[in-house]
């Protein structure tokens, strides 16, 4: 199979907050470097940074501190976060928000005196979330995108990364194999360093929030070059995804957190406020608690017509709801639902991967020349991510990656040779569905989503996880035998659906294996057969690798490099109860 070859000093995979910040920082540090951004959709328009509703956690308010932000992050993450990463996140968020405002032109909401407005967000002991209404992500990514599009760099839009290509020794990155989705042609982009910033996105679950092109390609590629993935059992579910049936893409999209914070009710099919049976904070409990409660209620069969529950806002006054949540009300209305005055069906929906590649706080990883930032990187959030720490994570570490990459390749003049046998293998892998007889790819997608939802979902048991792993293995071989009806590679979405499924199944196996190995219930991971959180002092994180199709899970002790369980950097009583909840 033929392919074209290009060269670029730095290749950035992904154009969310991490990818675009990396591009800006490389160009600022070293304007002469050739930078290429490659992305599955259009630069700045696909991906999930744009979809951030809540805001950006930053300790800029009077009385707040980096230490307090850090402690909230550690408590939220159930003592599992990589503490040096979490500290870097909280420290650098300050500079990054100032950069967004002063250099990129974001304008976050102000108080009437002109100071930054900080809103309250669940699980934090201080009001520290800066925001632009309820559409913070659009402001951040639009401003980033217009800066990057004005710079002298190369954009490969609608280019899909297929594989990271190391050198023959397997210890350095040398190139990335890609396919130009518009032409279907293969490209080998040779490079001195690569940023993996494709974003996570648990779209293997029946209900999910991320954008449609998200399919865990980044972590799947990382697995295939032998990189370690940590915390892969930690999948965050958002409690209120819109539920409108399985045949519509609007199902699973987020109805924002603030609806519950403002006093919205969750009701079962009999109109009962069931949350009171599960947690004293009722609807205002944290995402994981509310998600589990809704799922439990669904299992009891107390469900709405599409199998979920209802969110109801009308007791707060329809006009009031319309004013406070205009974007959400309008979105529901466009889809045929009355959020302000009626009831809307909702279901927990897979939202975010806390897990990812094992990295250093400076974004380096085990493969020389490869850097990882954003949702592809694990460690900063531990067992649960605070709302508002997601966009902070991608923008903070994206910028750091840009700085570090520019410094690391200064003076590197040689281009390492790619392992050409891998290039051949990977092209063959991508072309496989054109060699097989046509089958029903969508049926495989549906089954994957059912397996993950039913057996590797919100409430887990060893038995179901075993069953899930068996089903995933047979689904994987079925996919490899299922071909495409159409052999034209030009903008062939069905081919990409097939490739997406391969990445998703790869990563799903890791999620299920990690979940099976963790025999306790911590943060987002809940085992009905092991409900204790286990000993925090002996906390460990799971580390997954894959060798010749076998997944291996090891346990690695958490290093309490800054603070130990029972200690605090903050000298007051805010941290007495780590599950304490504050909501807007």
């Amino acid at each position, binding site marked *: 199979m033929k392919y074209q070859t290009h060269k670029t000093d730095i290749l950035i995979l992904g154009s969310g907050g991490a990818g675009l910040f990396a591009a800006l920082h490389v160009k600022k540090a070293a304007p002469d470097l050739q930078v290429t951004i490659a992305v599955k959709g259009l630069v700045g328009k696909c991906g999930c940074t744009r979809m951030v509703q809540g805001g950006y956690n930053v300790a800029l308010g009077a009385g707040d501190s980096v230490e307090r932000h850090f402690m909230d992050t550690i408590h939220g993450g159930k003592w599992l976060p990589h503490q040096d990463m979490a500290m870097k996140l909280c420290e650098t968020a300050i500079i990054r928000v*100032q*950069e967004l405002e002063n250099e990129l032109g974001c304008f976050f909401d102000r108080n009437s005196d002109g100071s930054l407005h900080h809103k309250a967000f669940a699980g934090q002991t201080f009001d520290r979330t800066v925001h632009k209404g309820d559409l913070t992500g659009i402001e951040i990514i639009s401003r980033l995108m217009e800066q990057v599009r004005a710079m002298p760099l190369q954009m490969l839009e609608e280019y899909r990364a297929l594989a990271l290509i190391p050198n023959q020794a397997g210890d350095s990155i040398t190139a990335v194999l890609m396919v130009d989705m518009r032409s279907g042609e293969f490209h080998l982009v040779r490079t001195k360093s690569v940023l993996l910033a494709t974003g996570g996105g648990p779209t293997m679950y029946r209900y999910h929030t991320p954008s449609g092109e998200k399919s865990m390609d980044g972590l799947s590629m990382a697995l295939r070059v032998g990189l370690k993935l940590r915390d892969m059992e930690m999948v965050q579910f958002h409690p209120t995804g819109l539920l409108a049936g399985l*045949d519509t893409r609007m199902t699973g999209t987020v109805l924002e957190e603030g609806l519950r914070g403002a006093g919205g009710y969750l009701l079962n099919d009999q109109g009962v406020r069931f949350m009171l049976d599960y947690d004293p904070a009722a609807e205002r409990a944290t995402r994981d608690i509310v998600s589990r409660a809704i799922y439990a209620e669904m299992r009891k069969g107390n469900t709405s017509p599409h199998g979920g529950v209802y969110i109801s806002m009308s007791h707060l006054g329809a006009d009031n709801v319309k004013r406070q949540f205009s974007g959400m009300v309008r979105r529901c209305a466009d*889809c045929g639902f009355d959020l302000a005055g009626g009831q809307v069906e909702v279901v927990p929906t897979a939202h975010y991967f806390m897990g990812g590649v094992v990295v250093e706080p400076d974004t380096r990883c085990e493969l020389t020349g490869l850097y990882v930032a954003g949702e592809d990187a694990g460690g900063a959030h531990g067992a649960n991510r605070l709302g508002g720490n997601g966009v902070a994570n991608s923008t903070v570490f994206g910028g750091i990656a840009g700085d570090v990459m520019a410094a690391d390749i200064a003076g590197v003049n040689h281009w390492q040779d790619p392992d050409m046998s891998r290039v051949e293998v990977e092209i063959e892998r991508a072309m496989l569905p054109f060699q097989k007889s046509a089958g029903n790819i969508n049926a495989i997608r549906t089954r994957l989503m059912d397996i993950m939802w039913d057996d590797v979902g919100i409430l887990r048991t060893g038995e179901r996880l075993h069953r899930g792993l068996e089903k995933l293995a047979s689904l994987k071989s079925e996919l490899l035998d299922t071909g495409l009806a159409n052999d034209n590679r030009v903008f062939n979405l069905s081919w990409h659906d097939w490739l997406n499924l391969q990445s998703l199944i790869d990563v799903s196996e890791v999620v299920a294996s990690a979940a099976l190995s963790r025999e306790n219930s911590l943060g987002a991971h809940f085992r009905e057969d092991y409900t204790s959180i286990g000993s925090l002092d002996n906390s460990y994180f799971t580390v997954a690798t894959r060798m010749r199709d076998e997944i291996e899970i090891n346990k690695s002790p958490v290093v309490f490099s800054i603070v130990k369980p029972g200690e605090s950097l903050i000298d007051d009583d805010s941290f007495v109860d780590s599950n304490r909840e504050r909501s807007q």
Partner: protein
Amino acid sequence: MSVWRGDANAGELQHFQVPQQENQTILDLVTWIQRETEPGLAYRFSCRVGMCGSCAMMINGIPRWACRTHVQKVVQGNQVTIEPLRNMPVIRDLVCDMSEFFAKWKQAEGQFRGGKSRYDAVEQLKPDTPKRRAANAAIECINCGICYSACDVVSWNKSYLGPAALNRAWSLLNDERDQHSLLRLKAVASDAGCHNCHSHQSCTQYCPNELNPTGAIAGLKRMAAVAALRGDI
């Protein structure tokens, strides 16, 4: 359902029977066709909820987001026709090339140039000054290309910057932190700029976010006239 199929050279409408359902958007119909009957159908989408502006297309002749257009709102006698956005080159089927649209954004100096750095504190700025209100009123553009596609002037005059880029320039010219006003005013007052607008208001009529690019362009015309009288540009 009639769907335009083709590429930059040629194309035609192709007809499909699709099942009607209670909760169904145009994006769902297109997805159904690709999954169930015509796996080669090309379309672009990402967020599914009107935040990314990737899925805009002509729906019964009007530019709309596919993801937020409920079928029941647009169906005419059990029939819907969808085509790629106007005023942009087609890549394949419903997918357009947006590179010229974004090149014009840059040409209109549609990016912030501030005077402070990441090491300075965030500026204390009251949210209710007339300038800040004007900047804010124009800010929630998601660059979906609907206004650009709706604009007749763009279709007559290929060099015209178009409503989205000019709307962004207007927002920036009202941003008190920006240091680039003169250069931007020159860019938008150029031959390709604001003076081409005939105030047909299609951009404002069809903007799904209810922005008012026509008003923004009128503001630019006034600003450019004042600057020209003063001899600034």
